[in-house]
């Protein structure tokens, strides 16, 4: 039998394997890779949000010092556009028309930062200098940035030939039944808000290194991704129309992804094309301003939502009108994000009738796509703000309206009105526990005390549920090496979550081997046949179960080989501390010897467990905040999280995900916002103007799990990468509103609730 190495097995707070290089400066991020002879590239971008243009000459640029190549759209007719893979279905069953981003624009630009030319030179500075010599005649047009404004009759059109900025309509629910629920309602509560646009701001800006092997007619792209296979496939199929075999994608260390590094970006085909033409490696490194301008943005919905209730506050029906700003082009999954989001829009409540309309809207802005949570934070924010509003309108405590409407444990499996099937959950359980941890009952006293210090104190909660690990699978391939180490090949992609550690725990559990004897390979299409990448918190729920299964079968094979060698029965062999041993004896053989004795077949094991529904992590966040009415500044004074993640694989890694997610969600609630001028110029294009959360001003988090194992997932795991981002934004905003309500009777504030907005709100009454 197997003996788990307790220090390293599943559930252990094992420290991370990947840490040593990262604390000593030996991490290897894309820009740290610099093959001999690498040239530097610079993208010439549009300064206008809407314009037509003609490139009249590139001659001077081509002749400039150190320049090797200048590409414009005319040079690359064979390279296809950045394809949208997330097209929504409209009420009449049709797929909407899509407008996709060309690799280089031909004669029109539609957002500030749109690419018009690509210059390759000895250094980036020379490429940039030369770019100024490209002669471009611009004919400025009129742009529009704001979602609702873009739908106005006389709005400038992003795509004139479409005759409208409406990209698509998507509907879900039962309009008539919901209508009836509203007609029967004793109360109706309503909220209207903007879920503002966010910018990912991973600390490592994007970089792409292109190489070309002429002999084999084969490209190699090195870049930070959330999965090499997806990027390879779109590059091969959509951009170059060649076999996937002809493209290798390599990802080394990644300095944060958060959803927006999941996509293929136009700089990827450009560095490859340039490398092919020049016979030398070509590297493009985006700077921070480019990140702000051109990497996919997140969120940006304008929403009106109404809840019909009976006299007791039971939710009868939910009506939502959501306008999603798509940006100027359909992003890789862009149109799908609000669709995924609305599928979670009933939250953890039993709501029989819904009527949701989503309208996708083109504007002269950066495409909006998946950003940590991808639609689910938007859904949770909507329903949790609405729940609080309903409570306030009815004069009920916020926990009571939730309790009245939670799906009860005896209702599982529960099918939502949006068609999702929740497997398990104890929603009142974690809410009650979180209220205890946060000393909810003692709040009034603390608020009084704060008042004495001239501070407005508020408390807010969000009870959230989200969908993770969408139906699918992730294959794991294990190999026992000749030296007794074990290698795992898996097509997910760590962006700092510590996959290598977590997967090693599953392996150590089954094979009784030390962490440093386990090698985890991700991030190279040549080494891995396939892979689904990382996103939607899928790596551990889907990847982990396959790793566990593959470890089981490898262990079984190893026991068999050892049994033959040691002349015992396989049932009597245990795998411990890197050795196979006959139980209760000192007769052992090392894994290295075992590997030598085994056939190639017996040294390998594969598994791919398919999961056919998503998992549903859920939990409660409680935020307590103090506002200084003199300045409008707020300070989070206490923050409690009680989560149901099903099964915890590694509490240390989990805490990192929870803290990090909460910080990002709090950032949205209190400070972060991408602001555009009316015509589409991005006003917040640096850390000076876009307020990121910093060490200062963040609370100590109280965190515990109250796990109810998933019955969908083979190991009961639910996934945790996005959860805290989802719970924290509504909890924090609800706390701010609570403080404002107690002090001034205010019931809403726009997000982010910056000091200026808070001050204005307090002083407008």
């Amino acid at each position: 039998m197997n003996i788990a190495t307790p220090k390293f097995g599943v559930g252990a707070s094992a420290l991370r394997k990947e840490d040593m290089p990262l604390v000593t400066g030996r991490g290897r991020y894309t820009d740290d890779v610099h093959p001999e002879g690498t040239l530097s590239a610079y993208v010439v971008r549009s300064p206008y949000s809407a314009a037509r243009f003609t490139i009249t000459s590139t001659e001077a640029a081509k002749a400039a010092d150190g320049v090797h190549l200048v590409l414009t759209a005319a040079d690359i007719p064979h390279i296809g556009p950045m394809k949208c893979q997330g097209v929504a279905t409209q009420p009449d069953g049709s797929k909407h028309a899509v407008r996709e981003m060309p690799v280089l624009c031909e004669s029109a630009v539609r957002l500030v930062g749109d690419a018009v030319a690509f210059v390759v030179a000895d250094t980036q500075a020379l490429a940039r200098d030369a770019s100024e010599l490209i002669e471009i005649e611009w004919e400025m047009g009129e742009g529009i940035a704001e979602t609702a404004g873009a739908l106005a009759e006389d709005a400038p059109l992003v795509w004139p030939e479409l005759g409208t900025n409406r990209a698509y309509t998507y509907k879900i629910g039962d309009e008539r039944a919901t209508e009836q629920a509203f007609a029967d309602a004793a109360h109706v509560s309503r909220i209207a808000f903007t879920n503002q646009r966010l910018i990912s701001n991973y600390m490592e800006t994007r970089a792409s290194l292109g190489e070309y092997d002429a002999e084999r007619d084969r490209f190699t792209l090195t870049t930070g991704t959330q999965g090499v296979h997806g990027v390879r496939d779109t590059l091969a199929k959509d951009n170059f129309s060649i076999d996937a075999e002809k493209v290798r994608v390599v990802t080394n260390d990644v300095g944060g992804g958060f959803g927006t590094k999941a996509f293929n970006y136009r700089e990827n085909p450009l560095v490859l094309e340039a490398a092919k033409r020049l016979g030398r490696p070509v590297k493009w490194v985006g700077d921070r301003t480019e990140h702000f301008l051109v990497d996919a943005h997140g969120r940006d919905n304008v929403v009106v939502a109404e809840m019909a209730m009976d006299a007791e506050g039971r939710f009868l029906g939910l009506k939502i009108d959501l306008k999603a700003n798509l940006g100027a082009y359909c992003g890789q999954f862009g149109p799908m994000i609000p669709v995924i989001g609305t599928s979670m829009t009933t939250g953890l409540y039993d709501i029989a009738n819904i009527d949701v309309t989503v309208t996708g809207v083109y504007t002269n802005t950066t495409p909006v796509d998946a950003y940590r949570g991808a639609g689910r934070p938007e859904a949770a924010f909507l329903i949790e703000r609405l729940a609080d509003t309903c409570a306030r309108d009815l004069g009920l405590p916020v926990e009571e309206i939730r309790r009245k409407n939670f799906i009860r444990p005896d209702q599982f499996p529960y099918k939502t009105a949006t068609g999702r099937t929740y497997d398990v959950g104890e929603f009142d359980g974690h809410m009650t526990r979180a209220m205890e941890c946060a000393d909810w009952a003692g709040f009034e006293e603390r608020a009084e005390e704060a008042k004495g210090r001239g501070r407005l104190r508020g408390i807010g909660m969000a009870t959230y549920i989200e969908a993770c690990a969408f139906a699918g699978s992730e294959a794991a391939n294990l190999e026992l090496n000749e030296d007794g180490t074990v290698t795992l090949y898996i097509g997910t992609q760590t962006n700092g979550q510590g996959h290598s550690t977590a997967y090693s725990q599953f392996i150590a559990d089954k094979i009784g081997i030390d962490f440093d004897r386990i090698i985890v390979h991700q991030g190279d299409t040549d080494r891995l046949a396939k892979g689904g990448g990382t996103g939607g918190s899928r790596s551990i729920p889907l990847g982990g179960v396959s790793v566990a299964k593959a470890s089981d079968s490898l262990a079984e094979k190893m026991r068999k080989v050892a049994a033959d060698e040691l002349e015992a029965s396989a049932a009597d062999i245990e795998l411990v501390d890197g050795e196979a041993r006959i139980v209760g004896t000192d007769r052992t053989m090392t894994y290295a010897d075992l590997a030598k004795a085994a056939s190639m077949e017996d040294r390998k094991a594969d598994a791919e467990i398919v999961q056919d529904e998503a998992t549903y992590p859920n939990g409660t966040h409680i935020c307590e905040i103090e506002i200084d009415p003199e300045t409008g500044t707020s300070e989070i004074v206490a923050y409690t999280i009680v989560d149901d993640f099903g099964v915890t694989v590694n509490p240390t890694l989990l805490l990192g995900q929870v803290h990090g997610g909460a910080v990002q969600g709090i950032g949205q609630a209190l400070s972060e916002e991408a602001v555009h001028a009316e015509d589409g110029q991005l006003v917040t294009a640096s850390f000076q103007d876009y307020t990121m959360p910093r060490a200062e001003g963040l609370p100590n988090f109280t965190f515990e799990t109250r796990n109810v194992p998933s019955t969908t997932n083979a190991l009961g795991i639910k996934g945790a990468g996005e959860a805290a981002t989802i719970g924290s934004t509504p909890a924090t905003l609800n706390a701010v509103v609570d403080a404002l309500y107690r002090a001034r009777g205010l019931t809403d504030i726009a997000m982010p609730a910056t000091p200026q907005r808070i001050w204005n709100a307090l002083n407008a009454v």
Partner: protein
Amino acid sequence: MTLSIHLTVNGAAQDVALDDPRVTLLDLLRERLHLTGTKKGCDRGQCGACTVLVDGRRVNSCLTLAASLEGAEVLTIEGVARGDELHPVQAAFIANDGFQCGYCTPGQIMSAIGLISEGRLDGDPERVREGMSGNLCRCGAYAGITNAVLEAEATMSETAKEAAE
């Protein structure tokens, strides 16, 4: 015009010829000395990813002109460990899970070393947060970072005390 400067980087003397007076210390480290441990997050002094120590003080290397460093002593992340033995701040970052993707980490560690040696922390988490607020971490590892700095400060003052006795 070529400008030549002499400086010490991680204890090693370096003679550098600068053909462009605008070269920053960050680009000098990464591109000419191939010390890629120091990271570029913004190139504008707004994120702290490029923090190194110059004559013991923390600076944003992206804002520091290499030409201004004649005779300076520069310490980067590559120079903090003694062989296999990690610096107490590095060890504390691992022990307290002070990072995820690790991209901000060299800057955080250098900033922490500088901050601790400024000697104003006295084990106060508020001062740590304030003192580290120039270093952004998008992975949001701030809780771990704060604990790491506090722990390292404690270890280092302990060691200093022992050494004094």
